[in-house]
């Protein structure tokens, strides 16, 4: 018998090439827009051109009269079917199609269903909507003024524009810490509204079979199972007659977690007409109406002793939630997991007070590549720490080192109640500093300054919290946040793994197979990973908040272990020894002390269908529902070096170095790809991405000419490194990694620009850090000096 080495099965820790890339590279992916069903109709949505207005009338006669138009769907029509409103993920309500008022520019008002998309778009222009404009509310500060126009007059008991108020932490203890402080450092900064901007926009082909009543919904969703349940609850459709199929998804980044009005309208249209209905958003629709991210006005204060020991942190937040409170977050959290704001530091006291406001802007508040507001929290604390270093006259790295939670303090309970599972923050920071040549660069910075050149070094030592559940603490709309996997081994030793989490480019087809390969010994190439069809995969809360590996990845390892246990019984029968005498290594059950007496997992699989011991159920398959005992806490240190043009404020990145620790690495190449993508997105957010509004509530940033995504030209070169601190509670020691780089990097970029100007007294420039803003900060510093 040949010996199969651990590496031969291409399991955990190997940079196996992505299985999915074969079809993507050949242009053979299948996206929802690629689907053409017989008799399919096309839907286009009419959107409000104004931000706030009463709807006086909607006349569809002319639109309806165009040849090829099959139906015009209005809010009125949806209301007749009790579908004019739907619940949001934060338990608020959102208009599917407006009936009473429009509340943001781009809000859905009506839709045309036609034989082809050109006819549908032509007909949109003929729908006559009479609006009675109302004053627009375009900032949360304005929204909370006593005389502000009331946006949500549809909600009973809602008398102002406040949408939530929430506090956490220990107010008194924090107050006391601040009283004892030598130094209090304050930072008010705005994390602007940005957008996940997946290259594939949202869309659906809704196919409700008029005979069977079964709704087959081909749609762009990061959480197909949860969406199925929501559809069942909202639309009253029986859940066994709803099948969500996702096909390939061209990026999600949080944008494809929610249910959008277009999905509901297309489904309703298919149901009423009895033909499949396709709706595909265009770019502008995606940018102006679907889940945005951030939009947090933040004020943070850090209390310290003169020698740099952190005593407490106090945070005040004001969020701009748009017209409907539609943030994606666990039920008990109103600002997501923002209370991770103590970051990588041993801060004894913390207190957050937060409020959110309705404004005449698109709803959303999705966690754009972010575990529910961790991005905003990490940004705030990392910016604060650097500013504190300036005020104390300390090196920012040394201030961090002094306050890091030490390895021996884990599991560490934070002042806001998180139990950090593991971390070695100093190791990651030291690696980053050494690779960068930090000490040398500080000298170069000094020398450059003497010549009038502005060099800045910024860093961020972030800690994330990802992988929700545990289910006792976290749910979305009551659906508990656990996850699952089903594993079936065929007689010839090939396997199929079914998971409910939904890849949008993360590489699940490869990494999940690698987990099976390591646990069960079936090579990665022999494991088919199936997902994206709710009829054929187990229940799942979906892929976002870096939760797939921490939850479904754990379930995959656990179900494989169940099969090893069953396999052992079969192997004992085949080898005619007792189970206790067997051990399992790589892909073999062998007799302890007699390694030649062995059977492979493939032998065992064949026997499971051909030669089972008496009393044992046939087959080799099982499932596992995994409820994580805790979240996982990835971390890292990012360092950025920039040069700022003293005349123009333009800045360019000279170095960008990232050290990540996501626990056990399943596929280093895929992890590196995740980091690269996130660092590029973080750069975009820091430097150029912005959705803003004029005083009338008109959206600026409604296409890719105005909403700037960085190209390969602007994106810096990345130097990436890893440390590996396994999660002690995860079956394979893995943590999530999909979002570390978007969470950690914006602060590093901005800190670098601030660092270049810090000697002139500049302490804040709000993102995106445009050259104009840098120039204005330099002018301001020059005036005040």
């Amino acid at each position, binding site marked *: 018998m040949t010996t199969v080495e651990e590496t031969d099965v291409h399991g955990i820790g190997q940079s196996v090439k992505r299985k999915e890339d074969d079809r993507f590279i050949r242009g053979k992916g299948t996206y929802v827009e690629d689907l053409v069903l017989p008799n399919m109709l096309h839907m*286009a949505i009419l959107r409000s051109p104004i931000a706030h207005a009463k709807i006086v009338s909607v006349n569809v006669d002319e639109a309806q009269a165009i040849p090829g138009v099959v139906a015009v769907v209005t809010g009125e029509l949806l209301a007749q079917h009790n579908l004019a409103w739907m619940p949001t993920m934060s338990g608020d309500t959102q208009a599917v199609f407006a009936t009473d008022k429009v509340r943001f520019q781009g809000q859905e008002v009506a839709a045309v269903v036609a034989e082809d998309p050109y006819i549908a778009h032509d007909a949109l222009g003929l729908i006559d909507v009479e609006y009675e404009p109302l004053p627009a509310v375009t900032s949360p500060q304005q929204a909370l003024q006593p005389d502000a126009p009331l946006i949500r007059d549809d909600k009973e008991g809602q008398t102002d524009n406040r949408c939530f108020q929430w506090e956490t932490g220990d107010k008194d203890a924090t107050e006391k810490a601040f009283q004892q402080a030598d130094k209090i450092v304050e930072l008010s900064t705005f994390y602007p509204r940005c957008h996940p901007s997946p290259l594939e926009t949202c869309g659906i082909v809704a196919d409700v079979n008029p005979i069977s009543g079964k709704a087959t919904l081909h749609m762009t969703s990061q959480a197909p199972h949860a969406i199925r349940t929501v559809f069942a609850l909202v639309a009253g459709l029986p859940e066994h007659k709803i099948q969500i199929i996702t096909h390939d998804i061209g990026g999600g980044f949080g944008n494809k977690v929610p249910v959008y009005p277009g999905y509901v309208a297309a489904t309703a249209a298919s149901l009423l007409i009895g033909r499949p209905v396709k709706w595909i958003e265009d770019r502008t629709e995606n940018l102006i109406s679907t889940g945005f991210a951030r939009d947090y006005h933040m004020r943070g204060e850090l209390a310290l002793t003169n020698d740099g020991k952190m005593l407490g942190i106090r945070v005040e937040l004001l969020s701009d939630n748009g017209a409907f409170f539609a943030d994606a977050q666990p039920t008990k959290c109103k600002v997501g997991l923002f209370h991770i704001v103590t970051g990588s530091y041993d801060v004894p006291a913390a207190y957050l007070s937060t409020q959110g406001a309705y404004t005449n802007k698109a709803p959303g508040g999705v966690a754009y590549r972010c575990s529910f507001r961790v991005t905003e929290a990490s940004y705030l604390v990392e910016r604060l720490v650097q500013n504190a270093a300036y005020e104390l006259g300390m090196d920012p790295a040394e201030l961090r080192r002094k306050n890091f939670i030490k390895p021996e303090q884990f599991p560490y309970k934070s002042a806001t109640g998180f139990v950090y599972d593991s971390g070695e923050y100093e190791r990651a920071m030291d690696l980053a500093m050494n690779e960068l040549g930090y000490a040398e660069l500080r000298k170069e910075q000094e020398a450059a300054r003497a010549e009038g050149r502005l060099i800045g070094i910024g860093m961020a030592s972030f800690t994330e919290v990802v992988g929700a559940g545990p289910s006792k603490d976290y749910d979305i709309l009551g659906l508990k946040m656990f996850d699952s996997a089903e594993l079936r081994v065929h007689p010839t030793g090939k396997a199929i793994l079914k998971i409910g989490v939904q890849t949008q480019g993360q590489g699940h087809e490869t990494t999940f197979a690698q987990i099976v390969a390591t646990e069960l010994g079936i090579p990665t190439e022999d494991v088919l990973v199936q997902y994206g069809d709710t009829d054929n995969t187990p229940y799942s809360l979906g892929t976002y908040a870096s939760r797939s590996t921490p939850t479904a990845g754990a379930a995959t390892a656990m179900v494989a272990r169940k099969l090893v246990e069953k396999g052992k019984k079969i192997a004992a029968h085949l080898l005619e020894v007792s189970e206790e005498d067997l051990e399992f290594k790589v892909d073999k059950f062998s007799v302890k002390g007699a390694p030649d007496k062995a059977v492979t997992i493939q032998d065992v699989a064949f026997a499971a269908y051909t030669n089972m011991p008496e009393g044992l159920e046939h087959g080799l398959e099982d499932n596992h529902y995994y409820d994580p005992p805790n979240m996982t806490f990835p971390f890292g240190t990012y360092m950025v070096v920039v040069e700022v043009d003293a005349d123009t404020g333009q800045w360019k990145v000279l170095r960008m170095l990232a050290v990540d620790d996501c626990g056990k690495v399943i596929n280093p190449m895929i992890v590196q790809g995740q980091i690269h993508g996130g660092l590029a997105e973080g750069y975009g957010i820091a430097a150029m991405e912005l959705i803003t509004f004029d005083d009338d509530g008109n959206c600026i940033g409604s296409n890719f000419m105005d909403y700037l995504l960085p*190209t390969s030209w602007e994106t810096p070169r990345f130097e990436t490194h890893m440390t590996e601190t396994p999660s002690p509670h995860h079956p394979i020691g893995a943590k999530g990694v999909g979002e570390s780089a978007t969470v950690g990097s914006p602060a590093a970029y901005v800190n670098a620009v601030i660092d270049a100007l810090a000697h002139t007294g500049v302490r804040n420039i709000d993102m995106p850090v445009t050259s104009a803003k840098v120039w204005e900060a330099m002018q301001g510093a020059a005036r005040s000096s």
Partner: protein
Amino acid sequence: MFPSRFDYVAPDTVEEVLATLAQHGDEAKILAGGQSLIPLMKLRFASPGLLVDVNRVPGLGFVEETGEHLRVGTLTRNTELERSALLKSGYPVMADAAPMISDPLVRNRGTIGGSLAHADPAGDWGSVMLALGAEVVIKSSTDERTIPVSELLVNTFTTSLDPTEMITEIRVPKTPARSGGSYLKMERRVGDFATVATAVHLTLDNGTIKRAGIGLTAVGSKNLQASAAEDALAGAEPTAEAFEEAARLAAEASSPSSDVRGSAEYKKAMVRTFVRRGLDKALELARG
């Protein structure tokens, strides 16, 4: 892309193009590179009834020096201009500008004549041509005329072209020896329109400035010619003081508006910085 309905013709000769324009007037729109027109149609901001595709007309793309002029065919793609050795050796302000236009995809299709006819104040070629004192040759089915670019550009997206007319070529005065030029552009990202850009062309004579041309991009209702700055430089010694004064005058001539790219104050300051830097660079080239 779901534009409004339109008709489409693709003539084979300039005469046919002009006859079609004469017949359809402002219902018709010339499709050259399509890099501005198609996005406008996609958004239904523009809904021409007839597209006259000139891409099949031979002989409209060329770059050559004849007599007193550099002649550039209207349909010459930006990529061809970017690669032109002639521009690199003799017309540095054009050679600078060509690769800064949008991104490679746009440059592969976009044409110089289309850019001028579109008259976007954030367009690059208008400023370059103003700095060079260039002219355009314009034809209709009944007439041909040649006017300076300064008379072509009227206002935002507005030219002195009649709907029945078409630009057929651009004529740039040949640059004498001891000339230099530069195009400096600030953009937030590749493919973005300019926040500010400045085109400078300088000719020296015995060490003094014989002629200076300065064009400004994205800081007014059209590409602007900084005439006061040009006049101040003509006949002057190319000193740092003279350049600083010219830069100040150019900034004064600009009338940018505040937007997400920056405040008006910032843009004026950048005109000043870029004109000064651009003059330095042009002088270096002029001195050889």
